[in-house]
């Protein structure tokens, strides 16, 4: 019998173009996603070297990082961003790459539209000049972020030189309590392994709590894999995956679909296959999570307190905690629930899909955002998500509660458009990074789930959604 293999090994082996001892392997790339932010230099390099895009048919482009989330029918106020949009438009037109521009009905955050359009399918290798490419691993793909030089490499060759990584299993078992979402699961995982804990590894998420997640939930988990240092995270495809994909625009139909599903069903880790590392978490023990510091590993339960830097034994960690509390304007020992927020952002490639918006809308229905809030913003992950949400009336619920309802894009997760967290202000954000200045210079970000963000918007401070009176 053949040696048992992990899911990662199976996908890896199916994509090896060339292997030599002591050298990185040449790996074929099935789907290359690009956006305006990290591609212009790659196209320029290609042109300067007189090279062509090898497979424009396997390359998809979208405008997402800097797009405005309102007034798209007006001229762009940001002329520098406009030049980048023009460059992407020109580059795609010249090379035959499909582009979803800012006026496309399919426009949205690259990691939302890939799965939504069925561009993302199990067993593929997918890369993009964006670290959150790990999102697509939710479908049983090997998907990871690359730099611009590698974007150019993939454009020119449809391959990448890669070393095979060790495989790490993160197993989450048991039932998630009510009010604990996929976001809390991944924040708890990062809290456990640390933000460098996965470095050099490819993670496979397993266990009953992962199996029970919807595709949206699995995307949230895989999305933040990079925040634990691992480049790629994946979940083996199953009936939920097939049901999600069936009928999507780029998914094969009829007999081809059946053949695809037959293949996808082989994409599981064999019994007896060995992971290089394994971490186990118990879902029933996971509480809603809130970050208190300046990286996603600085996280605690909503029932917890801001830690005392002196509680860290390692002097480097103590210093980091001190710097984080100084930046965040927080005192050690402050109960998390006493932290008041100025702005709430529901969006980003982590939490902007229909399920996320439904969860948040359910909590704010019939209520009003706290008068202490300066802004409550909902930015759907794609224009398709936006229109689906509107068909369900979610936009009306959010607007009635005092939220702004915008067009799709990366928005306040990265603050490259006008949606910026002002200096000194504090946000409850469903995004993925609480780094200094991430949402705006001097802005103070607390990462939470959509439910936690919604409840914080109503109360003006963090509350434990498991016990919140606002939950019916």
């Amino acid at each position: 019998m053949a040696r048992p293999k992990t899911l990662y090994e199976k996908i890896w082996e199916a994509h090896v173009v060339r292997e030599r001892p002591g050298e990185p392997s040449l790996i074929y790339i099935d789907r290359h996603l690009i956006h305006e932010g990290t591609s212009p230099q790659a196209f320029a390099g290609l042109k300067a070297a007189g090279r062509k895009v090898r497979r424009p048919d396997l390359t998809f482009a979208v405008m997402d990082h800097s797009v405005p989330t309102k007034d798209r029918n007006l001229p762009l106020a940001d002329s520098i961003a406009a030049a980048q949009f023009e460059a992407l438009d020109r580059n795609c037109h010249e090379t035959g790459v499909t582009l979803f521009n800012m006026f496309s009905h399919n426009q949205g955050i690259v990691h939302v539209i890939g799965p939504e359009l069925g561009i993302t399918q199990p067993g593929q290798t997918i890369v993009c000049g964006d670290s959150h490419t790990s999102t697509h691993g939710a479908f049983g793909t090997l998907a990871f972020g690359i730099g611009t030089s590698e974007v150019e490499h993939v454009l020119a060759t449809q391959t990448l030189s890669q070393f095979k990584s060790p495989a790490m299993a993160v197993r989450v078992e048991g039932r998630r309590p009510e009010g604990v979402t996929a976001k809390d699961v991944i924040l708890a995982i990062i809290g456990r392994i640390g933000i460098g804990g996965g470095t050099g590894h490819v993670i496979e998420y397993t266990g009953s709590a992962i199996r029970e997640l919807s595709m949206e939930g699995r995307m949230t988990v895989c999305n933040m894999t990079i925040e634990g240092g691992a480049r790629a995270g994946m979940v083996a495809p199953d009936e939920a995956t097939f049901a999600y994909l069936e009928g999507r625009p780029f998914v094969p139909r009829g007999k081809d679909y059946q053949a695809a599903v037959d293949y996808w069903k082989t994409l599981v880790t064999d019994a007896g296959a060995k992971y290089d590392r394994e971490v186990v978490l118990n879902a029933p023990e996971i509480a809603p999570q809130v970050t208190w510091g300046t990286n996603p590993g600085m996280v605690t339960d909503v029932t917890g307190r801001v830690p005392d830097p002196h509680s860290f034994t390692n002097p480097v960690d103590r210093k980091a905690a001190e710097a984080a509390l100084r930046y965040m304007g927080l005192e050690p020992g402050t109960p998390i629930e006493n932290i008041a927020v100025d702005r709430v952002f529901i969006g980003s490639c982590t939490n902007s899909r229909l399920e996320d918006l439904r969860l948040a809308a359910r909590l704010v229905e019939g209520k009003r955002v706290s008068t202490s809030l300066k802004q409550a913003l909902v930015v759907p992950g794609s224009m398709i998500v936006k229109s689906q949400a509107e068909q369900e009336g979610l936009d009306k619920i959010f607007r009635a509660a005092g939220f702004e309802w915008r067009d799709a894009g990366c928005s306040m997760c990265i603050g490259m458009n006008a949606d910026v967290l002002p200096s000194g202000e504090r946000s409850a954000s469903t995004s993925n990074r609480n780094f200094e200045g991430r949402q705006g210079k001097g802005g103070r970000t607390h990462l939470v789930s959509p439910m936690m963000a919604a409840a914080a918007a109503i109360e003006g401070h963090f509350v434990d959604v498991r016990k919140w009176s606002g939950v019916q």
Partner: protein
Amino acid sequence: MQPFTKHKGVVAPLDRVNVDTDQMVPKQFLKALTREGFGRTLFYDWRYLPGEKPNPDFVLNYPRYQGASILVARANFGCGSSREHAPWALGDYGFRALIAPSYADIFYNNCFKNGILPVTLNDAEVDEIFRRTGSEVGYELAVDLEAQTVNDESGLKLSFTVDPFRRECLLHGWDDIGLTLRHADQIAAYERSHEPRAILYGEVDASVLATPRD
């Protein structure tokens, strides 16, 4: 790409763990169309006061570290965003080599594509370099990629390892797209042999969804 063989230069210390690429180049500078000129933006929010006045409290602005070309840092250096603007900025500022106990994967990879050598040493060795950098003004290190050594003039002799293939590419400054294109026949063979599995590799007809170009 600029090759890296040997380099000797002043060391600057950045005594912070988990320095992310958002700090190296903040988002507002990601709208550029070229790779040049990012040195000005390096560590922008830490390095400048309003009006782009140098912040005297930021270590790279200390007079003693002017002209530094080797940066010693803490664990998980370069975590977060994949932005290659980070090594572009480090290189344009003048850094040729980095020394840290560990690096984030994407950033580490991006350094090699830009002629910057990220040297990995253990915690105790990095601590010692921090100590020496702090106690001696103008402290210099010599980094030799061929010999895989880091030495100073006061007897410090450390060795490091880099994957042999990456080392070779960096020593010669090879264009890695050019290297891969030497195997174009194998790429074509792979595409042919996998064509039957059209589910994965076949041509994708995007015409139904494409937005007409205005």
